[in-house]
């Protein structure tokens, strides 16, 4: 039996305006979604060209979830996005060329070649770099919220995890602490239905992950994660509730991982019909249709946006390829922080 509230779709431009967005914002979100997918598609090509060491992960199918939540965050809010959440980095303003440099292990990537993939963050943009151990970033997000609460700042932390990661103790402990202290944190569960090859029914026995929220003493919401406006509206409600002292919310954003776990995985275990059915829900196509139906998106605007994204990607790739590989003699540098490292906007 489902306990979590089911979010409503956003049906008109009027509802969008009520949720705090104008038409320009919508076009910006559309552009961010296209750019997010473009970055990952180009990354995939780089990988096949042998230019990306290791493996490569994308968030295809999760663009609405990531862009919707990130758009709802305030400039001083912070987040711990994961490997399906490239859209969060895009919305917060990470330059695409630095993402390609990161993919290729170059010095201009946010981790300077110390880490790969989406294991990166620009702390000046309010993001904290993820680790592979999902959902180990949830306690960190809760800690950021704790700092805001101690200092009585009107800021909110957003912590991401997947439905697979919901099985781990970190998720439970984080929601327990956030619940008892009513901390200003919003938990976002990207439920893409497959934890590598493990389906949801082998991962949790409730109908929804968000059903658990009630047990922690706060609200759970299930939202269609292919509907960027519905995601945005629920994230905005939750973030502003947290900011006002109303405590945490758990939002489960339901989508499908439209590819394998990583590029090496052909996802043979996902029924073909499931992919076909969800292809109809492609978040980008869905939003494009919505914009045409409800916001008079014109062919010219579409061309301008997609042309602009294409140019951004081309320029970014060129610039990233010019970025050098790290100097091997620097391998031991930077294990320990120095007092000067604390001279950042956050650490002061």
């Amino acid at each position, binding site marked *: 039996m489902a306990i979590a509230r089911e979010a409503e779709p956003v049906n008109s431009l009027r509802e969008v305006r009520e949720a705090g967005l104008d038409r320009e914002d919508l076009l910006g979100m559309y552009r961010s979604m296209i750019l997010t997918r473009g970055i990952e598609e180009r990354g995939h090509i780089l990988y096949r060209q042998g230019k990306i060491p290791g493996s490569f992960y994308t968030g295809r199918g999760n663009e609405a979830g990531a862009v919707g939540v990130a758009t709802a965050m305030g400039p001083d809010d912070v987040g711990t996005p994961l490997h399906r959440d490239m859209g969060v980095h895009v919305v917060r303003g990470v330059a695409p060329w630095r993402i390609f440099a990161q993919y290729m292990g170059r010095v201009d990537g946010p981790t300077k070649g110390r880490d790969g993939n989406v294991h990166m963050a620009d702390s000046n943009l309010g993001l904290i770099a993820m680790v592979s151990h999902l959902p180990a970033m949830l306690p960190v997000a809760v800690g950021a919220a*704790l700092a805001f609460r101690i200092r009585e700042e009107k800021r909110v932390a957003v912590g991401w995890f997947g439905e697979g990661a919901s099985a781990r103790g970190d998720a439970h402990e984080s929601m327990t602490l956030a619940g008892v202290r009513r901390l200003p944190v919003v938990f976002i569960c990207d439920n893409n239905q497959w934890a590598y090859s493990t389906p949801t029914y082998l991962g949790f026995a409730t109908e929804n992950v968000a059903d658990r929220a009630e047990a922690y003493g706060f609200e759970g919401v299930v939202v269609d994660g292919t509907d960027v406006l519905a995601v945005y509206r629920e994230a905005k409600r939750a973030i502003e509730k947290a900011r006002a002292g109303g405590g945490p919310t758990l939002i489960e954003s339901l989508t499908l991982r439209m590819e394998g776990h990583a590029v090496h995985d052909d996802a043979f275990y996902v029924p073909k019909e499931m992919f076909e059915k969800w292809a109809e829900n492609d978040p980008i196509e869905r939003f494009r249709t919505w914009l045409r139906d409800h916001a008079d998106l014109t062919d010219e605007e579409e061309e301008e946006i997609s042309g602009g994204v294409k140019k951004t990607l081309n320029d970014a790739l060129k610039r990233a390829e010019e970025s050098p590989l790290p100097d091997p003699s620097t391998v031991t540098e930077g294990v320990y922080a120095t007092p000067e490292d*604390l001279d950042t906007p*956050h650490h002061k």
Partner: protein
Amino acid sequence: MAELTYLQAISDGLRTEMRRDKRVFVIGEDVGVYGGAFKVTLGFQEEFGHWRVIDAPLAETAIVGACSGAAIMGMRPVAEMQFADFISCAWDQLVTVAAKQRYRAGTPVPITVRLPSGGGFSGGPFHSQNPESSFAHIPGLKCVTPATPEDAKGLLISAIEDPNPVLYFEHKHLYRRIKGEVPEERYTIPLGKARTHREGDDVSVITWGAMVYTAEEAAEQLDADGVSVEVVDLRTVMPWDKSAVLESARKTSKVLVLHEDTRTGGFGAEIAATIAEEAFEDLDAPVKRIAAPDTPVPFSPPLEKAFIPQVDDVVAGLRELAEY
């Protein structure tokens, strides 16, 4: 100067930093109303309020992880593990998140985790361990192991001030047994700087934590035999004062490495290997190690006594080296 117990010195150091720096807060199980299982934070909640002395749910992962998040947002958190043994529940947060964040993402994580450690009072397998070597092995973490009240205060302040994740191993068997003069003002003691607990010429003991006192008692017995023993207290095992250890090894030419943690892969192995690599030609005897056997910490008093290195064991080891 005031005479304080080791435990009072820890409280004094923590209180000093909390009064000086609003960013410092304490989080842990039973640290607030109860004042902590060992009463290190007794009276803190009355003075600093319940948002700076935070009673956490029984959730070590959340406690340590929340410290990292708060630290990245500019706070200076101090977590208390009720017993050092429970740090296993927060391994991931320390080793996966906090330790690697500076290297890979450029983000410093200035947290301090207090770890009441060590045995000697039938705490059994889960309330007696000395897990410092496990964490000294993790690049990005620092491990502090004070032996005296003066160091307990100064090293705690340094740990809180340090821009890195620091594990502060406070030995429970020293809490109320060891007293000493402690300056009343704020002071720091640098991490990575050893202290000569006792000067000597014939044999060196390299040790830390409660074993400093075991070594001292043994050294006094050797004194009666006419053997002069130097006791070097590392104070911090990561970073560790390699030059002080090598200097003492070159001075006496005979070295005993002593620790309460188990033998295989204990931090003493690193010290012995370093001496063998860098001071081999100065040695007059093989480096000797005395440590706990490779077993869990047993509960029953005769078993625990057989487990923890005793003064007699150290005396025998020192005599062996002296006669070599």
